[in-house]
């Protein structure tokens, strides 16, 4: 019987205590789950275990022996493997080659021993009862098979403990059942598993123990018995918070945007909802729920297969972002760095990106007007900069986000789609972004926010739509906002 223990781990980042005296253990043949809301400290704890960050305080023990994990290689040497949420596979290589990538056995002539790779991979797949051709090129397989290969990659290092971070995020029901079978057989082989997920029903199904993290502290550890989703949510969420917009809702009667039966291949299915003038509408769901894809479809970044979008009762065709913009729709992407801003252009150039045409006269650029316009938005949005000609890459996350917003305000959009607007932004800037959103809607705009920050949504939205697996699960109005219910509606069916 082997033990992995983390004792009294603490870790502080500037301005926030990410982990506060956290102790956590897993033993052989056990699935110990770790749950908590965004920012509860799960990722930090796992980063410490993987040697990516170093704890300020506390120790890690394996079988009562203190071990040092300074980088991922140390974790590997301690028979500790991690299956990350994102796939890291070479699509052009075979299953077996991927499993042994960087770890290939050589034959006596110094070539990679293909036969050994294939037989070993086959054995491994056999041991977890998976039927997969080891010669198959990974690019031809589906996501659940990728997940299996990721697990095999972890297994190829002969681990005693495996950390699985959201392994079911991109899997469907059947595939999840398959994965759980695999986890069971791993357990039978004596491997200890730390399982991280947002999906409570799965957690309850697979876990031997469940530990709830909240605000960097261990809230409670549950055994297998008597645990319910409701109990977990209550522990995770704590007390409810209030919504600020309750009075404002009465004005919301004119639908601007009507989304009818919108479907996209496998990301979302028959989505129908209205967005009203003056409304802040929240879309929330776990990874793979389709909330981000819905925004990207409305903006024309990805093409939807069926359904229609009506603007003020008139059907509009949106084939690309230009069509959306023509109809007064703006999009603030979650990937600010690569999609929202041109990093090595100036604040000015980024703010006027959408209105070049307006700022040109017979093709001539009106430099002065550009300056005035930009300065106007810099003042209005309270963007803290020394000079509008500075590069945006040197700005803080909050100020960068404001520049992205300025770009759309300049374009005089009526509808703004925010994708994770407060990701990677400090607390003060978050509040500012939300008050910008509120001001925009009070002036007659309408906003859809896709976010997983349920607390923020509850504090600022008029309605929240929860999504699961590409379908609308529930619609909450602000008088009925209840964080526990909303969390439950997102993470369990």
């Amino acid at each position, binding site marked *: 019987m082997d033990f992995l223990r983390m004792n009294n781990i603490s870790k502080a980042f500037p301005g926030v205590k990410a982990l506060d005296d956290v102790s956590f253990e897993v033993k052989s043949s056990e699935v110990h789950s770790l749950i908590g809301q965004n920012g509860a400290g799960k990722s930090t704890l796992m980063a410490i275990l993987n040697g990516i960050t170093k704890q300020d305080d506390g120790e890690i023990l394996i079988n009562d022996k203190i071990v040092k994990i300074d980088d991922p290689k140390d974790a590997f040497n301690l028979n500790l493997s991690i299956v990350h949420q994102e796939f890291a596979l070479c699509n052009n290589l075979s299953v077996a080659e991927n499993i042994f990538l960087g770890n290939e056995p050589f034959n006596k002539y110094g070539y990679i021993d293909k036969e050994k790779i294939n037989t070993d991979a086959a054995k491994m797949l056999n041991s977890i009862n998976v039927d997969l051709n080891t010669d198959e090129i990974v690019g031809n397989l589906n996501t659940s098979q990728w997940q299996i290969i990721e697990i095999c990659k972890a297994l190829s290092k002969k681990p005693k403990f495996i950390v699985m971070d959201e392994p079911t995020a991109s899997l469907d029901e059947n595939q999840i059942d398959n994965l759980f079978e695999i986890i069971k057989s791993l357990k039978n082989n004596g491997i200890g598993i730390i399982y991280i997920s947002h999906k409570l029903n799965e957690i309850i199904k697979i876990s031997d123990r469940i530990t709830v993290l909240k605000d960097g502290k261990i809230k409670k550890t549950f055994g297998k018995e008597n645990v319910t989703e409701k109990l977990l949510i209550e522990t995770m969420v704590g007390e409810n918070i209030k919504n600020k917009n309750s009075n404002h809702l009465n004005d919301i009667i004119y639908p601007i945007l009507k989304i009818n039966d919108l479907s996209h291949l496998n990301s979302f299915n028959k989505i129908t909802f209205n967005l009203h003038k003056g409304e802040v509408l929240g879309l929330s769901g776990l990874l793979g729920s389709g909330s981000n894809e819905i925004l990207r479809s409305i*903006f024309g*970044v990805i093409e939807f297969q069926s359904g229609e979008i009506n603007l003020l009762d008139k059907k509009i065709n949106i084939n*690309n*972002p*230009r069509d*959306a*913009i*023509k109809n007064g729709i703006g*999009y603030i*992407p979650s990937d600010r760095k*690569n*999609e*929202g*801003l*041109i*990093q*090595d*252009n100036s604040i000015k*150039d980024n703010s006027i*990106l*959408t209105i*070049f*045409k307006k700022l*040109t006269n017979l*093709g*001539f*650029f009106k*430099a002065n007007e550009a300056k005035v316009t930009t300065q106007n938005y810099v003042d209005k949005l309270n963007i803290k900069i020394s000079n509008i000609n500075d*590069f945006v890459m040197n700005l803080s996350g909050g100020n960068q986000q404001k520049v992205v917003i300025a*770009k759309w305000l300049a*374009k005089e959009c009526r509808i703004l789609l925010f994708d994770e607007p407060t990701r990677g932004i400090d607390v003060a800037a978050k509040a500012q972004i939300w008050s910008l959103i509120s001001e925009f809607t009070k002036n007659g705009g309408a906003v859809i926010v896709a976010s997983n920050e349920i607390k923020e949504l509850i504090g600022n939205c008029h309605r929240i739509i929860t999504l699961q697996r590409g379908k609308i699960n529930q619609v909450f109005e602000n008088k009925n906002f209840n964080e526990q219910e909303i969390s439950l509606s997102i993470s369990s069916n």
Partner: protein
Amino acid sequence: MNLDFKNFFLNNSLLFVFFFICIVGTLTSEYFFTLTNLQNMVRNMAVPGLLALGVSFVFLVSRIDLSVGSLTIFGPILAVSSLAFFGEIFDFKVLVRGNQYANSAAFIVIVSLITGLVVGFLNGVGVMYGKITSFIMTLAMMKALWGLNYVLTHGHAYYLQIPTYTWMGTLNLFNIPFSTLVYLIITLIAAWIMKFTIIGRRIYSIGGDEKTARLAGINVTFWVILAFMMSSFCASVAGILFSSRLQTVDAPLAVGFELTAIAFAVVGGVSLTGGKGSPYRAFLGTIVMGALFSLFSMWGLNTWHRNIVVGIIIILVVMLDQRKNNLGRL
């Protein structure tokens, strides 16, 4: 003030390198600082300078154009061979003697320019609609045009004896070669376009971050095609100046010019990854390399040795440029 000067020096260091080369030339060769040599030097800059300017537009949208070398001579060849062809059919007197031609200079100029725009358009369409990597698309175009050049000329040179045409390559205005003037004027126009018009704004946005540009509603397809057309247009002008100077159109001419052009642009500081560079940078690269070539001729170094030095210089310049980037902006 001090910082301003440092900035100016760093941004224009190639200007000083150019003067340095000229001084070295003057000190080491009595012929370097003579009117004839200086005229030759700047005249020789015109053709590769125009090509370097052209490919910079394409570099700025993070793509590459390898077709400009073959295209340079393709325009005049197409014009002259079609003159010959139609001249025989409709019996107008273009044929003077043997395979020497004398007729409409305007026709050659116009056909060359249109050809350039069409080729650029095809490159752009192949890249944007055909989803072909620009390297492959323009490589294929280069090869195809190369082949066409031989097919159209049957492998023989045409000697042009059209006074109005050939003076473009040989004439001096106020002691400045006409080709150099054309090059300078086009560079000025290009610099102005890139700085003050929507074309420049769009091209820099796309090169800076194509995804962001697309999500901001910019018609990336249109502007990239335009960049290819601007590149090909410059190549066509270069082709006119080139053939008028040599008074010849012949398939093997201008082979490999695309790589010289790319080298000039890169030395000037136009980034292959897009968004960084300007017509001015292409100009700086051109005068430095042009002066260097002139210096090498003074020293009696032949093309073989020259190529070795060019290779080394490109590596050094790009390495220094990377260092500068890593040190951060000043």
